[in-house]
């Protein structure tokens, strides 16, 4: 599997996708920097909430779709999957590696967001010590929340060769999050709202679905992940090429 991984990495190296990794962290940092922090409220928490609204609500789900479609692009564009799948590698490892790459890129983005947040914190003189536990739970949680989205996007990206189609699907599911995340009843159950909800710091003052217990979040994430991944994975294993 390591071989497959390295070959995938090589394919991505020359592509214009790398600059995309910086966009959301940069924007999030800007947003956090420009935000107004009233004296007595917790600034780390406020900035995390802001970032959750920009990065977690929109960018994370949308970028998941972009990267998933991207790792499948070369095969679709270069005349199909025949060449790759005729090599002595299992379809399973191909799928898993591509999936891992998407998650890996997302993890890098989370780290960059973290770096940006820390930079803003130091610049603006947020109180020390840095609440690592809150930040880690927030960034890691929202990263985990992307697992089901990435699984679904991988599934449709291997199925459809027209790049726009998985993107359309992704957007159709992501945009409603803007409304749904605010809803107390439905927010916790909507997979595309999970990255934003998971990113919100636990004790923050907020509205609607935002005070959701951790357990239900993970239940929804795990459940949708299992379904989407199983569907996409088994489709790929069986797909006629």
């Amino acid at each position, binding site marked *: 599997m390591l071989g497959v991984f390295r070959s995938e990495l090589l394919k991505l190296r020359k592509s*214009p996708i790398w600059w995309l990794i910086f966009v959301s962290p940069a*924007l999030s940092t800007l947003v956090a920097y420009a935000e107004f922090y009233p004296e007595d409220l917790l600034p780390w928490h406020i900035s995390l909430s802001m970032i959750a609204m920009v990065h977690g609500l929109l960018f994370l789900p949308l970028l998941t779709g972009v990267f998933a479609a991207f790792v499948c692009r070369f095969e679709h*564009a270069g005349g199909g999957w025949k060449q790759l799948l005729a090599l002595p590698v299992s379809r399973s490892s191909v799928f898993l590696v591509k999936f891992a790459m998407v998650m890996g890129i997302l993890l890098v983005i989370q780290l960059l967001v973290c770096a940006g947040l820390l930079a803003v914190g130091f610049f603006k003189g947020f109180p020390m010590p840095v609440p690592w536990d809150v930040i880690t739970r927030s960034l890691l949680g929202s990263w985990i929340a992307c697992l089901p989205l990435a699984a679904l996007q991988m599934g449709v990206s291997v199925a459809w060769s*027209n790049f*726009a189609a998985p993107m359309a699907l992704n957007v*159709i599911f992501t*945009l409603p999050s803007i409304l749904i995340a605010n809803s107390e009843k439905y927010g916790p159950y909507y997979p595309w709202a999970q990255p934003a909800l998971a990113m919100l710091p636990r004790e923050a003052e907020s509205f609607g679905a935002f005070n959701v217990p951790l357990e239900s979040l993970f239940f929804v994430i795990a459940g949708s992940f299992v379904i989407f991944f199983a569907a996409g994975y088994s489709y790929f294993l069986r797909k006629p090429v």
Partner: protein
Amino acid sequence: MTGFGRVFSSDLLKLRRTFVWGLAVLGPVGVIALQAVNFMLRYDWLTKLYAEDLWGGLIDNVKWLGVPALMIGLAIVASMMAGYEHQTNAWKQTLALPISRTAVYTGKIAALLVLLLISCTLLAIGTVLLGVLLGFGADVPVGKILSSSYLPLLAAMPFVSLQVWLSVTMKNQAVPLTIGILGTVFNLYSSSLNEWFPWRWPYLLEGAWSPFMTVVAGLAVGALLYGVGMNHFRVKDVN
């Protein structure tokens, strides 16, 4: 039939049985459906909030969801349309025909606009239906609904031109789509931006510029980008 007419007719034929028509319908239907759910769930709170102008409140809510849908929708449809050509490099066939490149490029934009106009129309109809269903009264502000459904498209012309230019000239659709997504996100957070930023324009907000000026600006920049894109398309080699 003029050159453009022939190409346009051919372009519409090429879109037969493709999902672009589905998207053109799905966009407005989705927006209306979501707003329906929104209003039904929070009926009391929202009707109290908009007590003075129920229709106005509805129209505004539809706009806030409809404009981002328009922004991303136009990028996706432009990309899909160009994608069908790029798949087998059909440009080398189409551009070897006795037709000007101008006509070919304009045909694509025209086809996209047809689809977007269908979406705007469905949005307008849907808004009316929703308002009536919610019991907002028969005093339907038709003028306001029409301007809220169609004018954002005019103000968004810079993005229509930009996305068509990018999708037609690049084989890799990842770039135009990503730019489209970024544009949509920018658009969502654009209310704090100042009037010179085109991402703000589709919302037609009152501000230093009147909505009328915003529409004019949108048409002007859209025309400019159309010219730039077409010029590039005319000169470029087809590989």
